[in-house]
């Protein structure tokens, strides 16, 4: 299977930070509270990544 990656829709993101709460393994926050994504999503984190995408209050995260 092709590797998956989380991408942010930057104009939609308002830095609420929920993604970091839900997936701290892959998502940290910069000094202003906007998400910093670390690399590709490993197989074992795919279910958590999907929940994080669904949980973003701005619908600003996608698994591509």
């Amino acid at each position, binding site marked *: 299977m092709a590797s998956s990656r989380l*991408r*942010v*829709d*930057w*104009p*939609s*993101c*308002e*830095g609420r930070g929920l993604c970091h709460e839900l997936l701290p393994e892959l998502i940290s926050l*910069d*000094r*202003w509270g*906007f998400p*910093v994504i670390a690399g590709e999503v490993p197989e074992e984190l795919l279910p958590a990544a999907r929940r994080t995408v669904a949980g973003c209050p701005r619908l600003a995260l*996608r698994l*591509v």
Partner: protein
Amino acid sequence: MSVLVEEGPRLLAHLDEGPQLVHHRRRHPAPADMTLDRLAAAAEAADLRGRGGAGFPFATKLRTAARRRAVVVVNLSEGEPASHKDEALGQLRPHLVLDGAVLAAMALGTRQVHLVLPGETPAVGERIGAALAERGSSDRVSWQVHTAAAGFVSGQARAVIELMSGRPNLPVTAWVPEAVSGYRGRPTLLSNAETFAQLASIWAHGPDPATMLITRAGDTDRPRVLEVVLGGRWDAVLSPAELARPVLLGGYHGVWVPAGALANRRIAGEDLAGLGATLGAGVVLPLPEGSCPVHETVRIVDYLAGQSAGRCGPCRLGLPALARALDDIDRGVGSGALVDDLAATVRGRGACAHPDGTARLVVSLRRWFGDELALHQRQECGHGVLAAAG
């Protein structure tokens, strides 16, 4: 015109003959009998790459867009304030640009051609309008004309598609390339005006010599647009004194190259790769005598911070922070580590490449002018000529 345009070997040949269709047709036959395979083969043989800055192979883009209900978009809107080549083409060689668009439309089997004009230079729109009137209905394409807003990011590909779609002329996130899904979800061949002009010229006269339009500033009261042969020497563009000083290649989203670095290199992407530079959209800004690359970069990054559309958080907050951190360095109180950290923080984190381009400029300053930055820490300035040639 607000720019000086010099006679060149191909696109800018026979400038004395004027931009009208009657003159143009004496040297360029009307587009006919075009197929996808023919045009892609011609573009491939010439290694034609996009001239908007990214340098993507045109034939690949063309083949990707070759599906049902494709759309052709000619982008004449140069966001980069230092670039004037498309303005020059639009005013002096409108029919070459339009021929290229017709060839692409024929190859894609579409009649939908959109022209995006620069908001800053209404004269281009007037000339294109006159050129369309001259052509009448002979092209069997439906020309649709849009005018972009002024501003750095309004000429960006997705911002242009937003404009065409009746939404604000600002960048949005591209989940797939425009050639896959662009205007109204249709395959969209969106290229810079020079790319279409090169395409028409290659079709009419073959691939040799391969040329590129350059905009350079600094030696006269107006910017100069010239057409150079790829693989040629930089002294066709810059004086020996300018080659002995730092040069900003690629415009405000470009990179610094150190003093003397271009003297022994050719005008070719592969010669610039070692310097971390590309030809981009062909903007060449030699550092004026007595100026300082640190000070110039502060001024440009401050401008770029003001040009952020303000929609993406890291760009809206990061570019002003970067400008302040650089200004501190210029005044001898800053931290290079903070500048590096901020540049890394904004990179790749926006709907368009505005933060990336700004970070690239700043990284090149840090790469080549470490000695200069150290001097500034002591409240001195070496005008960027201390750095060793790369």
